[in-house]
């Protein structure tokens, strides 16, 4: 288990590879796993709170954390090493996320209101039929689940969520829909997700949230981030309209 190596705080070096002249990627494990997510979140938070000179930003993903930096600033630092990769690696290897529990501190728990079915969720019937369920059962199962945000990717604010009940698994559409409205909640295979902006897409759309999943005017434009926990709550059209007007 690679995770144990990193957690133990011993001298086993991190697995790091160069992504470009301006970035390195740390590999923490090989499978999608909540403990690994918490470890990456911990490490990321610790790094952001204690940046090295030249750190620009980081990108957490399922099993990796990528660190972007300014090579000129890194090269002028007194970190050990002859090249940028060595200097950044030396710094990263000194970060020991043992028992920091940063993940728990920075993770948010959010309830996402969704108006299921109707013209907001044109594929609710498809999902129900594919799984021999009633539409109400689909909604109950979907709102009964606890979901974990593993990473943000694909388009701005799109959250890769884990934790959907396999009873809702439905293949994606053969022909993608040209325009899926922002806020649409969909299912593809054993994943569920929310479209943060209007894009084409092949997911089965079961409902829509009035929340703005991505808003350039917020300090954190993406509503969700890696490590967050989410549940869904069914709302009716009137509540949807009210929340939309409030504009969260």
């Amino acid at each position, binding site marked *: 288990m690679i995770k144990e190596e990193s957690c133990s705080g011993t001298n086993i070096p991190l697995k790091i590879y160069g992504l*470009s002249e301006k970035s390195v990627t740390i590999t923490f494990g090989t499978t999608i796993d909540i403990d690994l997510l918490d470890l990456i979140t911990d490490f990321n938070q610790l790094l952001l709170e204690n940046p090295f000179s030249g750190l620009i930003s980081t990108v957490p*993903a399922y099993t990796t954390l990528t660190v972007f930096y300014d*090579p000129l600033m890194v090269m002028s630092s007194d970190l050990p090493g002859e090249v940028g990769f060595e200097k950044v690696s030396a710094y990263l290897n000194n970060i020991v996320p043992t028992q920091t529990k940063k993940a728990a501190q920075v993770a948010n728990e959010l309830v996402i209101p969704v108006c299921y079915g109707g013209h907001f969720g044109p594929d609710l019937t498809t999902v129900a039929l594919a799984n021999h369920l009633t539409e109400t059962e689909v909604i109950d199962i979907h709102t009964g689940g606890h979901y974990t945000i593993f990473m*943000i990717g694909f388009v701005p604010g799109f959250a890769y969520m884990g934790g959907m009940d396999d009873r809702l698994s439905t293949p994606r559409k053969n022909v993608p829909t040209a325009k899926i409205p922002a806020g649409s909640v969909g299912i593809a295979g054993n994943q569920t997700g929310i479209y943060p902006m209007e894009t084409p897409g092949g997911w089965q759309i079961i409902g829509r949230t009035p929340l703005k999943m*991505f808003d350039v005017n917020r300090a954190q434009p993406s509503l969700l981030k890696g490590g967050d926990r989410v549940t869904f709550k069914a709302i009716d059209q009137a509540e949807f309209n009210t929340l939309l007007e409030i504009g969260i």
Partner: protein
Amino acid sequence: MKISIIKPGLLSTVQDMGRYRFLSQAVPVSGAMDELAHRLANKAVGNDDHCATIEFTYADAAFKAETPVLISYSGDGAFLVYNDELIPAEKPLFFSAGSVIKLVNNPNGVRTYLAIAGGWQVPDVMESKSTYLTAGFGGFNGRTLQKGDVLVSGADINQLSNKILNQLIGRSLTYPNWSILRDSLLPEKRKKIRVVPANEIGWFDAASILSFLTHSYTIGLRSNRMGYQLTGKPLVRKVKQELLSTAVSPGTIQVTGSGDLVILMADCQTTGGYPRIGHVAAVDLPLCAQLKPGDSIQFSEISRDEAEELYLEREHDLLLISKAINLKYTDI
């Protein structure tokens, strides 16, 4: 300073050095595809490299100086023409109010950058002036420039720009005898792209790695600011394992399920799940920005450390250029 767009051309957007601090929220880097040309255009008018420029795609565009302007351009997509006179690139150009400047075809490339003293004034969105068209934010109202758009320069013009301006100010077009020698920064062979082997290169069989580094690849029609699809000998996977989505960046060369190569460019997604065979050296990414569908390229391998060395050398050269321009105007 102010200009109006008479003819917008194929795809004209306001760009800067990109948006790096929101990658974790899947906001792409964006920014100038040819960052070198963007920076040289800025340097020629005395700007900081981070000032916004207009990125024109090919030619067939025109604009009018609504006030006297101090501008410059760089890149390979177009030449600037004024009164049927070809205007030199990479040098400061003073135009009086009312001048109409056209962009005519330059067969060498695709993208041309227009800088103005003080930079183009558009609101910062997530700390950058770059346009990201897919989500419709940044730049000029999150969109491509259209006929009739009026663009203004930033109010704060630095001391160097002011000195350049004061020396050139006149009745019509004036420019100095100096220019930045862009060619001296670029390799002779513009279709030879240096690449660093990527993390999953070992997932491909030896014959495929060899053909990646020896065969020619052609830029496909489906190529844009997000990335270029290449046509050529498909690569064969030795390791069939799935790659869990992880960070990618402009310059990353992915291999799709069918074995085809894709070079990710400025507007690429922040994460990807295709195995990566290489990464374009940062110093050669501007060359990629000037490639057009049908162009044939070849990759050559360099090490990670060599790529970094080239990058640091390039930055050093760019610093020297800035110093040299400053020196020209120290006693004025």
